[in-house]
């Protein structure tokens, strides 16, 4: 079964990837810190306060969340992950994107070769539906299809 959700494009692009889902605010620095310091490109989540993601890889996956939280270095962390090839395939937000994640998505798009298509305002229904491992397809117009 495939369900379709329409959001707003922050950084446009087409991508297909498996979903990895945070039901709570995504702490960018805490999540990427360990893998970036160890130069690991699988980007295993190191945020012990996030039971949804802790110890799960995030690289090249469709990272789904309500918003990001935490340090104002967040945008730089996404930029670094993108430059290393350790970034998620795309960023999908149920709520309006926050200023730190927006900066990260835009910095990656403008300053690296590894853009992360980013869509926000997908709604709580999206976050309730999408589960780890589901296949996600992002279209240029912000349409997100989720297949179980």
């Amino acid at each position, binding site marked *: 079964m495939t369900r379709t959700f329409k959001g707003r494009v*922050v*950084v446009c692009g087409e991508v297909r990837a498996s979903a990895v889902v945070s039901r709570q*605010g995504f702490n960018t*620095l*805490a999540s990427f*810190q360990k893998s*970036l*310091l160890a*130069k690991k490109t699988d980007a295993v989540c190191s945020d*012990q*306060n996030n039971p949804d993601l802790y110890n799960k890889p995030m690289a090249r996956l469709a990272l789904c969340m309500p918003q990001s*939280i*935490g*340090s*104002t*270095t*967040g*945008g*730089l962390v996404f*930029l*670094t992950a*993108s*430059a*290393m090839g350790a970034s998620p395939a795309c960023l999908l937000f149920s709520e309006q*994107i*926050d*200023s*730190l994640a*927006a*900066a*990260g998505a*835009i*910095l990656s*798009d*403008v*300053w*690296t070769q590894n853009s992360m298509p980013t869509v926000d305002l997908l709604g709580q229904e999206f976050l309730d539906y999408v589960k780890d491992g589901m296949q996600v397809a992002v279209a240029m117009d912000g349409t997100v299809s989720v297949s179980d």
Partner: protein
Amino acid sequence: MFLTEDEKDILTGGQGETLAKIMKTLVMYGDTFHAEKFVEVTGPGGHLVTSFGISIMSAMFDVMDEIIDAGIRTKTPFTVDPRPIDNKNVPSSLIQMIVARVMYGKQKNYEAQLKKLGLRDDNSFTCTCYMDEVGNIPGRGDVLSWAESSAVVYANSVLGARCNRNSAFIDIFGSIIGKVPNFGLLLDEERKASWVIEVRTSHTPEAQVLGSAIGLKVMERVPYIRGLSKFIGSDLTDDAKAYLKDMGAASASNGAVGLFHVDGLTPEAKDLGEMLIRENAQVYVIDDDEMERVQKSYPVMWTDPDAAPKLCFIGCPHLSVNQLISWTERLEKSLAAGGRKKICVKTVFTAAPDVLTAFAQSPFYGRLRATGARLSYICPLMYMNNPTAKNLPVITNSNKLRTYTNSRYYTDDEICSIISKGAAI
């Protein structure tokens, strides 16, 4: 966004490819938040959050090099967050020092990049650039391109300046272009409160726990705080400002607060009062029980929860001169009461280099040093990011440090007892 002819020229590459990329970043950022136009950055200077030359951040160094190679500088000199290493004043094992040297192996190069870009001077490394001794103090209504969450919330709330919670690099780019997209906390309407905080404690609430409670509840929303000025006064004295600095930092790190109003105290609340509260604002009552509940909710991240503390950090965000004086008197009194002369846990008080210089000229400097305490300009958070420091049983009175590291939070009174009397934790 509406762009002026000059802004369009920059965006389309008329003033160079790198400046066009900087402008494109800011335009996309503004468009994301429905900014209608750019507004001029004002005030004495920018403030950057990225002060650390972590080797892995190669993308950051590459972008900085590209900007510098294009001959671009910020419009005004800027300050930046604290340095990550101070081996002279902060206790570190040999292995810690080696790892820190490798981890922050690009520090020297990065500081050279900052100077080329417009760093004010070698003493500009602090998260509290708004201290009198440092002097990067925006006025009311100034529009800023700052990042560092604790500085942003202070500038907005206590100084009445206007700044969004910007990410690293957005802060630099706004300082280069001299403009920022006009949205969020730059707008009157967005500075109104959607939460009312009723403080009903029986005594002055611990600033760091109150801020934490507020942040955890309201997240990125603006709170209007009632009932606090009866404890900390209705004038922005040095003590009141220090209290709001610590409360704000906790609210910004435990949540994502960028602006708060305190009834009868902060500038906009004094002028506009409850007109700042939105219709249908939610209410959060904080009493003694709630303060206790919040403090007890903090997880203990130590490998051995019963370990004796080996290190204590006081000063995240960096301390004011008055706070250093107050801690000196407090420690002396507590040591005397316990019949001791020296503290029994290695303790580092952190402050801006210019604040430390000013403090060193006062008689309190020698008195604080006589207790065995140390003084440093370091960022405790950066110290704790060192993998070899993560398992150290570190205590702190900083809720920000607790949030981002394995350190354990205690109130000021508890910290004082632990470090001066060896009180059980």
